[in-house]
């Protein structure tokens, strides 16, 4: 993973990254976030072990 943990906005505890989703439609969000090898944005999925809240953010590749 190589990135910092997300903090749950409800509980303030560290969230668990459980998935990555490749988004092809998200290219408009910024070319800097597009993985040059995968051709899309890798969105990281996180869930809170305390309350179950979900959050996501794009993986920073460069």
């Amino acid at each position: 993973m190589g990135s910092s943990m997300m903090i749950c906005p409800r509980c303030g505890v560290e969230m668990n990254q459980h998935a990555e989703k490749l988004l092809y439609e998200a290219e408009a969000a910024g070319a800097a976030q597009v993985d040059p090898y995968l051709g899309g944005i890798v969105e990281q999925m996180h869930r809170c072990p305390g309350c179950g809240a979900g959050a996501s953010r794009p993986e920073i590749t460069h």
Partner: protein
Amino acid sequence: MEATRPLFIPVILGTTRQGRMSLHASRLVTQELSKHPGVESELIDIATLPLPTNNAGEAIKDAGFSAKMDRADALVLVAPEYNHGYSGLLKHVLDSCLMEYIHKAVGIVGVSAGPFGGARVIENLLPVMRELGLVTIFWDVNFSSVRNVFDANGALLDQSYIRRIDKFLKELIWMGKTLRYGREQVALQ
């Protein structure tokens, strides 16, 4: 590990057609789900969702539906078979979310007027579920010749469906618990 929060498993009624018999199937599954301790459920009727049809995808996300999908640990889709496929509006609704579904369980209930119990619509939905990040279970419920299964008031005429639904829900609840544990406790390596 036993989760302290109840599992939330909404049932999505996937058709807006007038006179839909799938409504009876949806109510029955919701009722059976609610009998399980530690499980909360509610029926989500896609006919009540105010989604526009002049756009599609996450651009038309409904905040209320999104919040329910985010909270859900598993889903039941009740899908009538129309011309061997699924309702276009069901796909329209499902496509309005994405992150909300990732690593959550889904079970599909097929409904048909004919003898195959929505088997074809279920098969057609499987690749869609996979792309949405949902995890399908291997039990289905197939309401064949649905007009013989419920009366006009929605009363169940064939009690054998209760046992089939029970098997389906047990598998869905197990998968819902397991995937919740995974989402919240098992890190992607």
